[in-house]
């Protein structure tokens, strides 16, 4: 095991319409990383190299206006313009996180949920989607999320979500966040394979008969976040970067006596610590 003394380097990828890049970079910095925001044109022109980074973060926003479908155009750009670099990055065992629009990108590029049978063999085929909310509108609200609880520690796949409390709270803000899988059996496989790591739930953590607005978009199986079979690639609709301090949460009691870490920070710390250890 090698331990890095230097801070892991995070690439925050942005393009036209990305708009959560700065707070995502800030969250990674607070978590102990060195974050750099780069425009995809800088990678395509090969001025800057993806391989120099340990973590790739695709932040929220409206890449290319969400024209055609949310995340689709950037997903294609990654697939067709950066495919080799991207696959090499994944094969090197590095980390990826996609938040909101970033999650939509990962799903539409087929990077998530990833090929289930071939664990270390990354394919880029779309087998699930994030589509229009059942409410037919963009909505901003705080939701409760149940993190994956497994009987055996070894079953915790996702690098990003270990040590999360059973119920956390984060804001969602999207119009196209309804997760749908290609087929019922594919959905069951995801669950069996411990790839469903965050579910919309009730305040008490129950995921039974969860309905709108607890499940804000109508996602199948209340899915809010998934990882790939390796656990290194993670995508979620809620915004952990908007809850890195308690001062950002509506559930904090104002006036605040003390600034404390928020639920979202743990996710960034997990990624950064993994990178420090293994990358």
């Amino acid at each position, binding site marked *: 095991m090698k331990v890095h003394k230097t801070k892991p380097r995070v690439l925050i990828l942005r393009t036209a319409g990305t708009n959560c890049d700065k707070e995502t970079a800030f969250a990674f910095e607070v978590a102990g990383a060195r974050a750099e925001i780069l425009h995809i044109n800088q990678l395509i022109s090969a001025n800057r190299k993806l391989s120099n980074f340990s973590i790739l973060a695709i932040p929220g926003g409206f890449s290319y206006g969400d024209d*055609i479908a949310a995340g689709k155009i950037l997903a294609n750009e990654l697939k067709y313009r950066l495919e080799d670099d991207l696959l090499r990055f994944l094969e090197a065992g590095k980390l990826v996180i996609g938040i909101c629009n970033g999650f939509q990108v990962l799903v539409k590029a087929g990077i998530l949920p990833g090929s289930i049978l071939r664990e270390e063999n990354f394919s880029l085929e779309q087998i699930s989607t994030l589509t229009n909310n059942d409410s037919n509108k963009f909505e*901003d609200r705080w939701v409760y999320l149940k993190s994956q609880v497994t009987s055996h520690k070894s079953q915790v796949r996702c690098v990003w979500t270990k040590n999360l409390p059973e119920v956390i709270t984060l804001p969602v*803000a999207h119009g196209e966040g309804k997760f749908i899988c290609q087929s019922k059996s594919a959905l069951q496989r995801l669950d069996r394979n411990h790839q469903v790591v965050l579910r919309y739930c009730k305040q008490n953590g129950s995921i039974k008969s969860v309905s709108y607005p607890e499940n804000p978009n109508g996602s199948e199986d209340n899915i809010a976040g998934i990882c790939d079979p390796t656990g290194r690639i993670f995508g979620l609709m809620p915004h952990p970067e908007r809850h890195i301090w308690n001062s950002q949460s509506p559930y904090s009691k104002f006036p605040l006596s003390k600034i404390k870490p928020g639920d979202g920070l743990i996710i960034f710390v997990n990624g950064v610590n993994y990178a420090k250890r293994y990358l």
Partner: protein
Amino acid sequence: MIYRIEIRPKTGVFDPLDQGLLKGIQELGIKGVYNIKSVAVFLIKGNLPESDVRKICQELLTDPIVQEFKYYQNLVGEKSKGKQVYDFEITYNQGVMDPVESSTLKAIKDLRVTSVEAIRTAKRYILHANISQPELKTIQEKLLYNKVIQHIVADPGQSYPSQFREPADYNFKINYVDIIRATNKRLQEISQKGQLFLNLVEMRTISNYFSLLQRNPTDCELETIAQTWSEHCGHKTFKGKIVYSEQCTANSKKIKRKTVINNLLKSTIMKVTKKLNKPWCVSVFEDNSGVISFDQDYNVCFKVETHNHPSAIEPFGGANTGIGGVIRDCLGTGLGAKPVLNTDVFCFGLPDYDFSKLPAGALHPKRVMKGVVSGVRDYGNKMGIATVNGAIIFDNNYIGNPLVFCGTAGIIPKKYLKKSAQKNDLVVLVGGKTGRDGIHGATFSSGELTDESETVSSSAVQIGNPIEEKKVLEAIIIGRDENLYNCITDCGAGGLSSAVGEMGRNLGARVDLEKVPLKYHGLSYSEIWISEAQERMVMSVPPKNIIRLKEIFDQEDVEFSVIGEFTGNKRLELFYDSKKVCDLAMEFLHDGAPRITKKAEWTSSKFAEPKFNCPEDLTETLEKLLSDLNICSKEWVIRQYDHEVGGGSVIKPLVGEVNDGPSDAAVVRPRLDSRKGVIVSCAINSRFSLIDPFWMAASCIDEAARQVISVGGSLKQTALLDNFCWGNPDKPDRLAGLVRAALGCLKTALSYKLPFISGKDSLYNEYNLAGESKSIPGTLLISAISVVADTRKCITMFAKQPGNLIYILGLTRDELAGSAYFKLHGFLGNNLPKVYPKESLTIFQRLEKAISQGFVSSCHDCSEGGLGVALAEMAFSGGLGMDVFLKEIPYKAQSSLPVRQAGKHKAQNPRNDFLLFSESNSRFIVEVEPGKKRFFEKLMKGVNFGLIGCVNNSQDLNIYGLDGEICIQQQVSKLKKAWQEPLNW
């Protein structure tokens, strides 16, 4: 070759869009539609093999999980046929750009398909319905399209090819307008026909100027002058001379007071700022927004704009470009401020207004509202700016002329505040390309709306492209931080004409109009110059920095063009292909407008005070007030805005145990690494204006100030913005109201020591109703921005803990005129809430101290609906009950309201209903833990306060009347339901 591609949901997939449309049709009162299917249509022109078309469909346009595609080599596709089937499609009018077209083109290139030349989009609808032709027309016109920007494709085979046809090239021909020999009548004709909105005196002035030059102006010169002198750009009413007189009542012609106001702006709004001379006001009334100091390194700026006329005609596009415009004001402040938050305030007619009574040409208020909200959502969310504060007023006086206020606050490093164009700097235009859009927007907003507005001025309406503006923003901030330019401003109303004209005011500028990048061929030099195409900024760049700056814009894929130079000869010179088309002295352009004298005559109105007895049980009254559209929950709107993006949100627009209560103000941290924050609040109350705009203005300032205090702010570093929306100022009664409001601002803001830092007026808000020009009620929006040193100390408005004490601060007076309560009973009344600065300032200061010392658990200001509504909101937002005793309320009778009942009651006796629903200013409801009672009350010494009750353990709000009997008793969940239901769409 043009391919037709259709994308639709797979069978069996739930499509929320179609469900939403079905609901919308039902809301129109049309019952015969069983099913509606919408299909996205892409028309792709180019010489490409079928395999590429398939690739585009599979890899790009279709979501393989939920959608399927079909493509055709003919333009019609397959029409659905059969009884009770209606199949039609809608596309944009030529010249209106759908942003999807350009992103789709880009994405197709990513697929390495290079032979696509152009794309058009359309939407096809297939209705299964048993409806009449008129019903079909209603669905189409009221729900599916707006003929200002779209049309139904009658014959796809014919019309699509023409959609792809490039307009013909422009053949240069210089146009002179003969004005030097024109008669007065002819001059007026020229002004009217050319949509110049210049009056005769102004036309004469121009004619005289050109007579001296012994030549006629070109059309371009005339347009430039008209724009610079327009009400929108020049604010000639506010800066002109006003002869103001007051008389007591309509009957007595006795004039009480007559004064001449030389410059209304300078003698009221700006006078406050000048007199107060706050060191933290760093740039006021000069830049594109007002700027105050934030911390050692940064300033914050704030600006609120209106976009009323465009929103009346095309609500989505109007609001969309309205918010886009005010964001550019922020980008164009100093050398570029970064936007951090948006606000929005709307005034609409009632959403259930009778369709058949709509004025000709007006859109239904519900449609206006839905469109406006979508427009703000689309632009604000896509730009990634948190929309954190706002208000909505419903009043049928806005039926033909809705109001849309959009605000943006930004943050800018102190060192980038100063800017000025330098001689020999190049004029650089960045951002969107220029089309025929928005021509005559500035002058259009300087006239009244008529039922022909939508046809005559349709080019004044456009759709924004927020992603374009986001790209511009990113590039500007990078360029700014590398110190690459000397000056920047936005292209707003008046387009290049006003941006370059203003920036080169002291230097002079030369522009080569053919260098401006165009969306399509065929624009004349004049059109290029005055186009108000969106998402453009003008910069003044030293020649040595051009290469680097262009690199930055290239990387963001933003258009960057050098179009001219700041010359130093103090003239505005325009060329097209080296031929001179405009040559004006800057001095004449900016200072040559004749000062206008307008008459203002104020007649104070006397509305009867209502006579009715106080109902014994006020529970139902309270529920009705909670359901008043101006009081009820706006959650349906608020949730559609991203109010968390940026991560700076501290006190959110919706607060409470389950985040659904009405916050008094928003608190945002513009710097993620700092505890410092800004508070923004707003106040608007047009009913008060019907009685006396003076006190309306005073009340608005008080309300904006007390909202700042409510969340834990201080007035020490609070600044105000004014936005006046008024009727036609050429009519003396309208103008008098405006003067009264400005005087109210002067008096109140001075005594509260709150400087104005920016403002805007939108006049001529009138519309034609049954042959008469009807004015909106004079409407003033006061927005406040305040710097708060430690956001941890901020508080919210919802009840926190059973057993906590409930106080009221401030005197309740029998000032119910204009109140929601009187409105409920069908009255206006005459005795308006006043402002008593000595009393209120003490309350503000003490409460501020109490909150900062941590004595206050929650605080809510009393505004519309008074104490009753405020208590209910605190209780149900916290999910807790309260016991409240009205006899503990400090009360002062102000008037001799005729409330006698058979001579028994004395006029000054308080009544339960008046105590509960009076809207007296400067009052707060405060929740205090019992353990902090002593400290809190000690601090409140000298303030009129009452310990009126406590938070209880039940789920009921119990209010005991003056006689000790219960007068309101209801479960808080029911009160909440009454409050949430009306706009829960």
